[in-house]
C-alpha cells in the first residue's frame, strides 16, 4: 500500500439547512486511483469538491470536520485556496476548455501562477502537459486553433493537460467520461493508468465498470453517507454491505 495522501475525518457538509454529507472519513493513497460511486445526489461530487475547496464558491455551503493533504489541514485559516487548487487539479464532467486556443488553455495556469520564466519555458510546459495528457500528437500542428473546436474526448484530454500544467500532486475527476463515447472513454482510462504513476487520482463516476477498471480502491456513497470503502475487486465481487451489493448489481429501489 502506498503512503496515505488525503485523509478526511468526520466531514459534514451543509448546503444551508440541508446536510449533504454525514461524517465521511476516508483515506486516499498516493499514486493510486480512488473511485467514488453512488446514485445521483449521494454526495460523491460534493465530497470530491471539498478536496480542492470548489464548494467555497457556493455561499451557503458549510464544511465541518478535517481534510488533510500530506498532513496539512486544507480548511485551516492559513490555507490559500489558489495555492491549494494549484496542487489539487480538477477535471469536470463536461469538457470545459476556455474558448481560447489550445495553447492558451494549457498556458493559462502556469501564467497566472508565474511558473514559467520566459516564453520558451512556457512552450515547454505546454508541450509536456499535452504529451502527458496523450493529446500532443493530435494537436501539435494546430496549437493556436480554438480548444473548443476539438472533439469531446480531445477536449477532455485538453482539460486534463490544463490540470497538470501547474504540476499538481492530486487530480480530481468529476465524472470525466460521462459525456464521452466508449472509445474516448477508453483513451481517458488508459491515460489515468499512466497518470497515476505521477499523481494521486480521485474519480467520481457513474459507470461501475469504469470504477472497476481504473481504480485501486472504491468508495460507495449513499444519501450523504460513505457506506463502504474497500479494495475495488472486493467491492465489485463481494461487498460486505447489502446496500453496496444492491447498488452495484442494479437492485437499488
Amino acid at each position, binding site marked *: 500500500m502506498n503512503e496515505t495522501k488525503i485523509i478526511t475525518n468526520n466531514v459534514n457538509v451543509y448546503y444551508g439547512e440541508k446536510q449533504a454529507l454525514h461524517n465521511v472519513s476516508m483515506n486516499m493513497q498516493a499514486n493510486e486511483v480512488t473511485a467514488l460511486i453512488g446514485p445521483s445526489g449521494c454526495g460523491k461530487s460534493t465530497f470530491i469538491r471539498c478536496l*480542492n475547496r470548489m464548494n467555497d*464558491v457556493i*455561499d451557503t455551503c458549510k464544511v465541518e470536520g478535517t481534510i488533510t493533504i500530506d498532513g496539512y489541514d486544507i480548511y485551516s485559516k492559513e490555507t490559500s485556496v489558489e495555492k491549494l487548487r494549484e496542487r489539487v487539479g480538477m477535471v469536470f464532467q463536461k469538457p470545459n476548455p*476556455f*474558448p481560447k486556443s489550445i495553447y492558451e488553455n494549457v498556458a493559462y495556469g502556469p501564467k*497566472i501562477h508565474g511558473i514559467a520564466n520566459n516564453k520558451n519555458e512556457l512552450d515547454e510546459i505546454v508541450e509536456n502537459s499535452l504529451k502527458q495528457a496523450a493529446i500532443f500528437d493530435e494537436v501539435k500542428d494546430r496549437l493556436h486553433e480554438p480548444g*473548443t473546436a476539438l472533439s469531446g474526448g480531445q477536449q477532455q484530454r485538453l482539460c486534463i493537460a*490544463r490540470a497538470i500544467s501547474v504540476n499538481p500532486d492530486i487530480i480530481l475527476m468529476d465524472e470525466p467520461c460521462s459525456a464521452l463515447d466508449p472509445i474516448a472513454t477508453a483513451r481517458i482510462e488508459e491515460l489515468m493508468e499512466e497518470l497515476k504513476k505521477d499523481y494521486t487520482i480521485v474519480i467520481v463516476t457513474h459507470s461501475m465498470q469504469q470504477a472497476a477498471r481504473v481504480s485501486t480502491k472504491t468508495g460507495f456513497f449513499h444519501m450523504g453517507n460513505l457506506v463502504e470503502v474497500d479494495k475495488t475487486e472486493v467491492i465489485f465481487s463481494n461487498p460486505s454491505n447489502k446496500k453496496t451489493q444492491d447498488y452495484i448489481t442494479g437492485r437499488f429501489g
Partner: protein
Amino acid sequence: MSFVNLNDNNLQKRLSREFRFKVYCIMAMTFALGFVLFLFTSIFSTGYSAFYKTMIPIEISLSSVVSDSNSFALMTNEEINDLSIYSLSKKNIYNLFPNITDRKEKKEILKIFSYEFEDEIKNFLKDNKENINDINIIYLTASDDIDQLHKGNFPRDIPEKRRRLSDLQLSFYDELILENKIETEFNFPFFTRGDSREPELAGIGGALAGSFFTIIVVLILSLPFGLLAAIYLQEFAPQNKFTDFIEININNLAAVPSIVFGLLGLGILLNTFGMPRSTALVGGVTLSLMTLPTIIIATRAALRAVPPSIREAALAVGATRMQAVMHHVVPVAMPGSLTGAIIGIAQALGETAPLLLIGMVAFVVDVPSTPVDPSASLPVQIYLWAESAERGFVEKTSATIMMLLGLLIILNLTAVIIRRKFETKW
C-alpha cells in the same frame, strides 16, 4: 394500420386548424410590415426633397465696391465682412428683371431670395478671393416659398390671397424658368448649419452635434458604471435580501417612464447643482440615468449566459475569482453586453421627453462646439420643426427623421455585427 386515411375527420380538423393558424400569422405579419412600409414611404416621400435646395444665379458686378477685382485676393475675411455691399447686391438682383421699376414691385423681387443674400455673396467672395472677375455669376439661395413652389409643394391654382406667393412673384418664377435660371443642388448646408427661422436656411448641424455630444457623455458615464455594476452584481455580490432589493430596483428603473428622468435632471442637475441649462452635458447625464439600467440588465444577462463551467475551469487551476471573471467570463460576455449597450444608446439617441424638461428644446442657431454649449438634439429638432407652420419645415422634419432612423439602423447593425463577429462559438 393505414397511413392514408383521407376520411379521418379528426385529422382533417387538426390540419385545417393548422392551416388557419398559419393564415392568421401571415396576415399579422403583413399588417405589421404594411405599417412599417407606410411609415417609411410617407417619411421618405415628404423628406427626400429637403436634401436639395433651389438656387437662382445672378450676375454681380463689383466695380462700385473696389476698383480692381484682383484686390480681393489681398483682403482678409474680416475685411470682406466689413464691406458694405447690401445696396450693390440689391441693385444687381433688380437687374434680373430690368423691366420692373416700381419700388414695391422691386421689393417683391428681393422676396424670391433668401434674406441672407448679402452674406451669401460675401461667402462667395471669401471662398473665391483669387478668381474674382468684374462680373461674377453667383448662385443665391431661393426663398422658402420659391423653393417649395419649385419642388411642387405649393399649388398655384388657388386665389392669390390664400397663397404665400403673389401673382407677380409667380410671374418672376415663370420667367426665370423660361430663362433656365432656376437650378437645384445638393443641400449641403442642411447638414452643417444650425437652426433658423427661415426654412431654406435651417440645418440639422446643431442637432447632430448636440446628439453627438450627448451620446459621448452617455457613453462615458453609463458604459463603465454599467459594466462594473453588472459585473459586481452578477459575479461577486452575495445573494441576500439587500442585493435582491438592488436587483429589483434596477429592473424597476428600466421601466420608469423617461420623462421622470427629465424631471430628475431638471430638479437635481439644473436646480440643485446649477449645471448649465440646454446643454448636451446635462442631457447626457440625464440620459445616462436612463441607459444605465438597460446596460446593467443586458450585461448581467450576458454574464449569466456564460456557462458556469468556464468559471469552474479557471478557479480549478487556481485563478482568483477576479482572474476567472476578467480573463474568461467577461470576454465571453462582452459581445452580448456591448449589444445591450448599443441598444441602450440607440434608445438614448431617440429620446425626447427628458431633453424637453432640461431645456434642450431651446431655439439654438449656433452649432455647439462643446458639451456645455446650448444645443438641440435630433429628436428635439424633429419636435421643434414639427410644430413650425412654414411648409419648408415639413420636409425638413421628415428629413431629420430619416437621419435619425438612419443613425439608429447603423447602431443596431453595429450591434448585430459585433454579436455575429465576436460571439464565442462553442
